[in-house]
């Protein structure tokens, strides 16, 4: 019996390896999240705006620099924590949540808010009660409403023709998120079936499906669990469905689920383990809450997209969910 064989029995690290646990270590999770985002990012850069790549680079560098600065100030080992990848993920998620043309300095402020205010003020990785990227998004949209709602009008011939706007006069317009665009023309085209799929812009639909694909891959790799995304999509879909029944001018389910931040958020934001609920039942509740709140803010609020605020509100409810969810002890 070899030394290695005997070691196998004493070493919990090797046991972890044999069950695939080390392979699931925190830094690996972070890398896989970024990997899952890649197809969406590529399509985003190709179909909508290549500036998103610049934004991603700036955000990741800024997030890492802020992280390094804080670790240095807190007298902690800088390199090991940069390696865990959580700061980079925050930067990536933030850069994908904001319009690609956002001025770099505003994006950098956002990264600072995410890393300093949302994460390290509460004690760093694992201790932040709120999703850092969403805190930064909220601060940015409150502070810079002009640039934060300046989404590029896509070179999206299908949508233009469908909306009877071949001249592309939208280029002159600002303050339109892909979701808001539906609202803008809902009145004109009510009852028009062509509208249903193409309205958020086919390009955006393609990207939303790429997020969905990445999310399914993460599910398959067991990086995330199904509870929160499914609960979110079901509750948001139900809310929009009921709204459509009551008022025919309400946003159809297809647009609600494919437009805006829905799919991106379902698989990459509400699945954030740190600021979300940690138990299966808790995650169901968390996801459903985000769905309902997103619907309410979209429908009745003044903000173009309610997802970030819904996530932040439910983040605040996580301690309560944790407390209420008692284990069914076997």
């Amino acid at each position: 019996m070899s030394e290695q064989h005997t070691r196998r029995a004493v070493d919990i690290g090797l046991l972890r390896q044999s069950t695939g646990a080390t392979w699931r270590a925190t830094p690996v999770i972070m890398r896989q999240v970024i990997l899952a985002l890649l197809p969406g990012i590529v399509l985003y850069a190709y179909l909508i705006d290549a500036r998103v790549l610049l934004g991603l680079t700036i955000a990741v560098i800024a997030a890492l620099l802020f992280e390094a600065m804080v670790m240095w100030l807190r007298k902690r080992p800088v390199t090991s924590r940069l390696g865990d990848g959580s700061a980079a993920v925050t930067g990536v998620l933030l850069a994908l949540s904001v319009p690609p043309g956002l001025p770099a300095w505003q994006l950098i402020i956002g990264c600072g808010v995410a890393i300093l205010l949302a994460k390290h003020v509460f004690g760093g990785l694992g201790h932040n009660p709120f999703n850092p990227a969403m805190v930064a998004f909220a601060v940015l949209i409150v502070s810079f409403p002009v640039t934060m709602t300046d989404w590029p009008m896509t070179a999206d011939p299908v949508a233009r023709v469908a909306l009877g706007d071949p001249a592309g006069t939208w280029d002159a317009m600002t303050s339109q998120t892909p979701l808001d665009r539906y609202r803008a023309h809902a009145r004109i085209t009510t009852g028009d079936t062509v509208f249903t799929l193409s309205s958020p812009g086919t390009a955006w639909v393609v990207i939303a499906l790429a997020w969905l694909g990445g999310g399914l891959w993460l599910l398959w790799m067991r990086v995330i669990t199904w509870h929160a995304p499914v609960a979110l999509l079901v509750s948001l879909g139900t809310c929009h469905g009921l709204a459509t029944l009551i008022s025919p001018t309400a946003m159809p389910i297809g647009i609600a689920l494919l437009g805006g931040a829905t799919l991106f958020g379902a698989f990459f934001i509400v699945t954030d383990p740190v600021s979300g609920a940690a138990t299966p039942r808790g995650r169901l509740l968390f996801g459903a809450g985000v769905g309902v709140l997103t619907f309410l803010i979209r429908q009745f609020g003044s903000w173009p997209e309610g997802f970030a605020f819904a996530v932040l509100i439910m983040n605040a409810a996580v301690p309560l969910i944790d407390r209420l969810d008692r284990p069914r002890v076997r």
Partner: protein
Amino acid sequence: MSTRTGNATHAAAALALLAGTVVIAVLLMQRISQPRIDASVSQLREQRLAEVLPPGEWDKALPGDTIHQLTDDAPTPIFRYWRDGVAAAAIMQVIAPDGYNGDIVLLIGVDAEGVVSGVRVLSHRETPGLGDDIELRRSDWITDFDTLSLEAMPRDDWALTSRGGAFDAFTGATITPRAVVRAVYRALVWFDEHSTTVFSLPRERP
């Protein structure tokens, strides 16, 4: 025992004395400042009224003929203006209740035909930097209403562009401008129905 009563009497007397002094001081101060306060309030109002009134000379000095609570749904107060004895303009003070944060109080000036001569915000508590673009000192959005009337624009256009209307929302905020547009529209509709009543009411003695 006697000292305690003495103390209590003493304390009560001190309290009464001080209270009296304070009351007298406040009354005195009010006597001195009240005229100035009234003056500055009316000055402020006249300044605002002048901003929304069509240009020219009027039969009566600002604030004009004032009537309160004409009907249940009427703007209040309404300031009426005559030029050479002809009913020529009115200013309605209305409240937009569906703002982002409490009531928005507006002054809406119209001529006798119901054409808007100006709209101004008297007071509001909208979010600074977002909703306060309805103030003239921050943006000239509010001047978009000038020269508009119910006849000049179809009903559907009295809405924000995001809902298919003619008014731009300012970026990031749709609730505040929507509330203002609705309030102006409501006031114009009311005036359209009641303008004869408004001007037929007896004029105040000058």
